[in-house]
Structures are given as C-alpha cells and as structure tokens.
C-alpha cells in the first residue's frame, strides 16, 4: 500500500518535504527545548500568519510573506529576550496576537476569501511542489551547517550564556541567529503541519529525546529521527484513512508522547 501511495508524485513530494522538515526540526526543536523557547516559537509561528494574509492581499508568494514576517518577529523577540529572558512573555503574547489579527484583517481585505488560507493554518503537505522542495532543502542545509559549525558555541550559549560570553562566544549574534533559524523552521513547517501545530512538532520529539540521551547533539539527531518516523507514519495513516495529513502527523506524535510518558511513569512506580 505504501508503495502504491508513493507512485503518486504528490505523495513522494510530501515524503521529501516531511523528511527535510524532520531534519530541520530535530536540530531547531532541540535548541528550542533546551532554551525554553517553546512559547516564543509559538509567537513567531503565529506572527507568521500575518505574513500569509499580507501575501494574499498584495499577491506575492505566501512563502515569502511568512518568511519576512517570521524573520521580523524573530528579530524583535531576539532583541527583547537578549537581556531579560523572564520578562519576554508579554511581548511574545502581543506579537502572537497582533500577527494573527493582521493575517485575518488582510484576508478580509482581499477580494474573494482565499480558500487556501486555511491550509496555512492546518498544513498542506500534499500540495508541496518542486520549487518548495528546493527552498526547503536550501534552508535545511543552512540550519544543519550552523548547527554543526557552531555546535559547541550554541551548546555553551544555551547552557550558560554568561560563561559563553566570557569565553568569547558571539552570544548576541548567535542568539539572533538562533531565533532566525526558528523562524526559518516555522516557515518550512507551515507547509507541512500548519501554523497551529508547529509548537507541538518543535517540542514533542526533542522533549522525548531529551529524556533518553545526555548530549545535545544526540538530542538533535534523535528528535530528527522521531520527526521523520512521525511524519512517515502520519502520512501513511492519512493516506490509508483519508484524513488530513498535518493533523494525522501530529496525532501520531502526540500518541507517542503520551505513550512515552506512561511508560516512564510505570517504570518509576515499578
């Protein structure tokens, strides 16, 4: 059945897109979880919705719209969170709400409600085209490059920024870079699982991986693997049962997450 599914080009593209997103999310998600940036990623993701609305209104590529909006949101949040990690919640919340509201207003103003807007909310992995794959591939390569070359710097930054700064790690630069990478990952994930579910995809696999391994690199690799497994399984389920693909992927991830929790709890009691 799986082979039959893969005979369709859109299914093959969906699989490639899912795998590229998995590699990216594994790396970014690990950094999001260890830096406690889940809420902030949610903020960036939803601010991106404003970009989608704007892209429809002005008639440019939604990918460009989300990219621009997410990057802008990321830069603003990076500036705010750099000094005081604790007090950033409010601003993130404001950007979150304002971004989404802007998206809705732009959609209102666009003549003829674009049906496609919904797909950016819930994902449309089955409509990923060749061009999207190239863009995603490039971003994925960029994220992997940064993660490998600055690996220990990112580790030090995440663990003890004061010490990292003292040792000459470009903390400010990397902090901005990290949030921009989150924004990039968000833009990619918009296509795969949709905005609503991005936070779950960036947090579930690394959270699970964090319990199992003791180094950041391994958490990255393991969560990428988990993302890939969830994507493939979710796609298969959605194909077999004719369900929405993005939601299926996330439900598979959530099921695994709760199973993992249950097993851990049982082991604790035993």
């Amino acid at each position: 059945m799986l082979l039959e599914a893969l005979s369709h080009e859109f299914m093959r593209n969906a699989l490639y897109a899912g795998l590229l997103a998995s590699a990216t999310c594994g790396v970014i998600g690990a950094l999001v979880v260890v830096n406690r940036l889940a809420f902030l990623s949610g903020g960036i993701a939803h601010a991106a919705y404003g970009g989608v609305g704007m892209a429809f209104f002005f008639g440019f590529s939604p990918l460009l719209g989300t990219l621009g909006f997410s990057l802008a949101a990321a830069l603003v949040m990076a500036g705010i969170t750099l000094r005081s990690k604790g007090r950033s919640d409010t601003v993130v919340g404001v950007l979150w709400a304002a971004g989404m509201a802007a998206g809705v207003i732009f959609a209102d103003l666009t003549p003829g409600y674009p049906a496609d807007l919904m797909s950016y909310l819930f994902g449309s992995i089955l409509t990923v085209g060749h061009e999207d794959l190239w863009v995603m591939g490039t971003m994925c390569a960029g994220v992997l490059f940064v993660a490998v070359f600055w690996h220990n710097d990112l580790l030090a930054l995440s663990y003890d920024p004061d010490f990292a700064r003292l040792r000459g790690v470009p903390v400010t630069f990397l902090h901005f870079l990290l949030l921009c990478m989150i924004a990039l990952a968000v833009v990619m994930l918009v296509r795969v699982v949709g905005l609503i579910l991005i936070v779950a995809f960036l947090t579930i696999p690394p959270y699970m991986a964090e319990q199992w391994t003791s180094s950041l690199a391994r958490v990255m690799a393991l969560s990428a693997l988990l993302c890939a497994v969830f994507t493939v399984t979710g796609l298969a389920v959605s194909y077999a049962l004719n369900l929405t693909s993005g939601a299926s992927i996330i439900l598979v991830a959530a099921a695994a997450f709760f199973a993992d929790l249950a097993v851990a709890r049982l082991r604790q009691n035993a």
Partner: protein
Amino acid sequence: MDAGLPASRTTVPEHRAFCKATMAEDKPAIELDRVSFSFNGRNVLENVSLTVNQRDFLAVIGPNGGGKTTLIKVMAGLLKPQQGTVRVRGEKPADAARHIGYMPQDLHLEKDFPITVMDVALMGRMTHHRLFHGRYTREDKKAAAEALERLEILDLADQRVGRLSGGQRQRLFIARALAGDPKILLLDEPTSSVDPEGQTRLYRLLKELNETMTIVVVSHDLMVLSSYVTSVACVARHVHHHDSAEITEGMLEDAYHCPVEIIAHGVPHRVFRTHTYEKEPE
C-alpha cells in the same frame, strides 16, 4: 608613545608587542579605579578602588546583597560599571578574558539539560581566537580531562550534569574555570554546597594553584579562608581592602555588624590579633 624609539632597531609593532607582553607580567592582575555600579537606580558598588596583585589570593567577604557577586562580575567583565575603570593585567576585561577563569555563583541551571560533565569542562576551552567551535581539538580534551582529574571528578566525565550532587557540580564548575589555563581565577562561592572536608581539600588545591595564579574567592567561610588568603576585601557597597589575611574587628563590623558570632564560632585558625581577641572577648 613610541616617539623616542629608533625605528631601525625594533619596528613599532614589535616594540609594542614586547611592551605589552612585559607590561602584562608587571601589571597588577586586577585594578579597579573609582568604580561605581548601580542596578535599577540602586548603587551596588560605590567608588571602589582596589588592586589585586599577581599571585594574590584575595578573599571577598561581606553581607548578603553587599555586592560581592557584582564585584567579581565587574572584574570578569560581565558587568560594565557606569563609572570608573577596570583593568585586568593592564587590559580591558574583555581583552583579557582568555586569562580569566570564572566560576559563577548561581548554578541552578536547568537540571534536565542534556549535557555531560565533559561537555561542561570543555566549555572552559573556548577562546575567541576561534570563530566557531564545531569540534574541540585533542589538546582541548586533554586539558579538560586534566582539570576534571584535579577536582577528582574525571570518573564522572560521561555523566549527565543533572545527576551530580551539589558539591560535585561546584567542583565541575571550578574545573571548567581551570580548563582554559587561566592566569586569574575568579570563584564566586565555590564551597557553598561542599562538605567541610571537601572544603579543606578544595582550599588546599587553590593554595597550590595560587603558586602560579591570582585567585579571587567570594566566600562566607571566613575561618577556612583566613589560613589561605593573602588579602581580604570586605564588600558592603564600599570596599575595604586589607593587605593581609588578618581579619580585624573593624572590618568585621563594617562587613557584618556582628563580630560576636564570628568569635563565638570556635576558631579553627587564629584570625584576630591576640590582643584584640582578649580585649574584646565578646
């Protein structure tokens, strides 16, 4: 400043490099000149001038909230004072960062963080000579392992940091500070969760390191310290610097307003001049 130098013998940059190298050896390890630091409108440090000579062993004592941690962060270059100048071996703290081994006080870092003991020790090997640290070199790993060995936690190298006890974690952060081969060690309460025996071992190690390094320690363990340090600074907004390890009553009153408690504690090493002790037995 090189105006009078004949250019034929040494080129100016060479001469400067030479000067800088010799200067760094002669300069005091740390020099604070009329430094003031305020946070949220509150003066934490006020007009502090302090010189720490090379191979000094300085204890920083004082009441909680008196500015001990701020002082050591200013020395490290982590905080920039609003007024005054800080020089580390004659340079700005940021430029001298490679010579500084710093151990922060607050180590309630994420317990779940997926990081091993070795990972943390290796952090001490980072330098800004390298644009990025994708991989550490073999020397880095050797130096980190040696630092862990010195603190007797090399056998824990592959353990997750979250599994360590408080004392082990403090030793790890001292090892991290040592791994970079610093000339100056800045330790912010290195023994707060170490048992008394461990403290003695630790101070013995510091004494040994003191033969080649300048050491600044923030501590409450006045009694233990007094037999190791060469000078004491009491921080309570102002800094009173004393060029000997001897702790006088005036200092204590300044710093703690409670000489009684200190004396009452059963003194393991003599910290007061005998006559002071006898005159004011209270």
